[in-house]
């Protein structure tokens, strides 16, 4: 099953040339754009939006890093540069509503851009998907391969503690009729995957264990055969962790967007 599927996702530049305004801007993020694993999540989420006929657009080559990692690594100058350019662009297009699959982009756009002049309604895809399910717009198939499957959810710090979004991703999983099992540390007590604060882009400091291994052990201890995530960095960390434990044959790491995309009734998107 290796066919090429291309999306016709317009960019804001294209739309505005036609004088059109999309319902929502999909902020793809750098991981979603360039990381091969995260690209699949981007395709899955864009697939869901297309499937539902939602008018959305991307920024395409005009999108730039929000500045989250450089800000947390201490480079405020570079962060302010990135923020300035992004806000100029978003305001120029008069963007009102943004959805993103990355909790780090979500946090920066939602919490850090307003005082720099960027005011938007920013939604993480976990909440967005939950909304669509609640409204009955997403219809899920009755014979999903995840039905009754033991699944554990790993809280992203930037979704959870940073923004207190704990229930939305769980509600999405419940809608899939899976058997949700919680790890020892979950929700506000959830253990980080190890990638935040620009750690994704450097070697871990010296210690006696890798953080993603510690977290993976907790995930595996639940007996779940699938670890659901809602963040591209958590995805990388948990995938690496599962691999390093030699469990990648039995245990999958999937984003909640992928789970929903694979469970759509009248599937067109896989």
């Amino acid at each position, binding site marked *: 099953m*290796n066919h*090429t*599927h291309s*999306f016709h*996702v317009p960019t804001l530049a294209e739309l505005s040339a036609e004088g059109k305004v999309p319902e929502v801007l999909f902020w*793809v993020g*750098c991981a*979603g*754009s*360039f990381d*091969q694993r995260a*690209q699949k999540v981007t*395709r899955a989420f864009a697939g869901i939006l297309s499937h539902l006929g939602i008018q959305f657009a*991307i*920024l*395409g*080559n005009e*999108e*730039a*890093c929000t*500045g989250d*990692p450089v800000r*947390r*690594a*201490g*480079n*405020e*100058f*570079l962060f*302010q540069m*990135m923020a*300035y350019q992004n806000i100029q662009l978003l305001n120029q297009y008069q963007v009102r509503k943004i959805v993103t699959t990355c909790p780090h982009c979500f*946090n920066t756009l*939602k*919490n*850090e851009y307003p005082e*720099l002049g960027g005011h938007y309604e920013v939604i993480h895809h976990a909440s967005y998907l939950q909304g669509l399910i609640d409204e009955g717009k997403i219809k899920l198939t009755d014979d999903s391969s995840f039905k009754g499957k033991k699944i554990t959810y790993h809280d992203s*710090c*930037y979704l959870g*503690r*940073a*923004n*207190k979004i704990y229930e939305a991703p769980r509600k999405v999983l419940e809608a899939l009729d899976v058997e949700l099992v919680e790890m020892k540390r979950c929700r*506000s*007590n959830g*253990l980080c995957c*190890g*990638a*935040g*604060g620009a750690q994704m*882009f*450097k*070697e871990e*400091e*010296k*210690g*006696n*264990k890798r953080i993603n291994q*510690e*977290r993976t052990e907790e995930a595996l201890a639940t007996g779940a055969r699938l670890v659901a995530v809602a963040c591209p960095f958590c995805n990388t960390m948990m995938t690496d962790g599962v691999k390093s434990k030699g469990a990648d044959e039995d245990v999958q790491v999937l984003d909640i967007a992928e789970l929903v995309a694979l469970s759509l009734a009248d599937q067109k998107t896989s």
Partner: protein
Amino acid sequence: MDILQQILFAGILGSSVWLFSKNIRAIIRNIRLGRDYTASGSQEQRWRNVMLLAFGQKKMFTKPLVALMHFIIYAGFLIINLEVLEILTDGLAGTHRVLAAPLGHLYPFLINAFEVLAFLVIVVCIVFLIRRNGLPIARFQKNELNGWPRSDANIILVIEIILMSLFLFLNASDVSLQEKGVLPYSEHLTGRFLISSYLMPLIHSWSVGSLMILERTAWWLHIVGILAFLNYLPYSKHLHILFAFPNAYFTPQEPAGKMTNMPEIQREVLYAMEPDKIPSDSITPPKRFGAKDVMDLSWKNLMDAYSCTECGRCSEVCPANSTGKLLSPRKIMMDTRDRLDEVGRLIDKTGQWEEDGRSLLHDYIRPEEIRACTTCNACVEACPVSINPLDIILQLRRYQAMEESQVPPEWTSLFSTTETSMAPWKFPPSERENWRFQPSS
């Protein structure tokens, strides 16, 4: 009671209050060395925080049993202070149990309640001493507690046991004297009390003189002990009993993921991009970008340091600390207070602040520590008294990145890649849409 005792008491009370207020003023002066800070959120929200987090100790209850025991000590402390009001009045006015007559039947009820609390406090303090020194609880055994911090914790518990015991012996000897008809004790008969009545058989056979010596000794040691404890606070981690309240009030009411903005840099970028916006009157740039020393931190960061009681809940949940990295959020707070105290002592000596060639970063906190942080906010979430170690870590990182240019080499590449490719990975912006055409599997 003779007039000499009253004079002595007034003298001790006066000098204790004077010394305490002097030390607290020094601490407030130290906190004011920090940068400006304006707490976000409404008054209402912040008072709610004071009620829930400080008075209600909401976050303590994630460990319910420990929270209950801690609450007993806390309630004991607050409620038994009502009895201290009577003791202070007696001491100054030369009266004996001045509230017994006016309060009537309520009086024995209150003293009984205090005695039960005192007994519970003793039990809990003993349990806490055992937990701290005998049980394998990781957060009590970290290296950063070696030396004074560990002694400090034990001293507090032992003092509390002694003070509560003195209160019970005071009542036991007092009631014994009442029963023997000794004046002024028998002026108002209170009857036996719930807990101290069990101590009375121990002193049953004592002479009136010995009982009076015991009663006076217990009375004096108890109140002098309380005043001494008051003056121990400014030197101790126990200061959290005061600072937890303002700290809860001044905690920002915004999503934890939001980093503190640096308006001075925001302005610089704006002027670089839109030079026409540069105001005619030049603004003085800040002394430093980020924080190297305690004065570069906000006064809330510094108040955080004085609010810390070194319980270690932050380090217990820290992903870096629990996987053996050098970072310990508790140590960040302890270092901040230690350095601030050092700065304060220098100011005490010379009257003003002069560079001493030392700083929080490097002399107290090493770069390896702050580099291990994943900014996951677990420490912030865990703190029962609203301390934010992450905010300090990020300000130290800003200093390292922007003033020292000392960041891990991978971050140097991260910066240059972000600047040139507009992404943390080396892909040109033209490839941003490639995900649309990749084969899916």
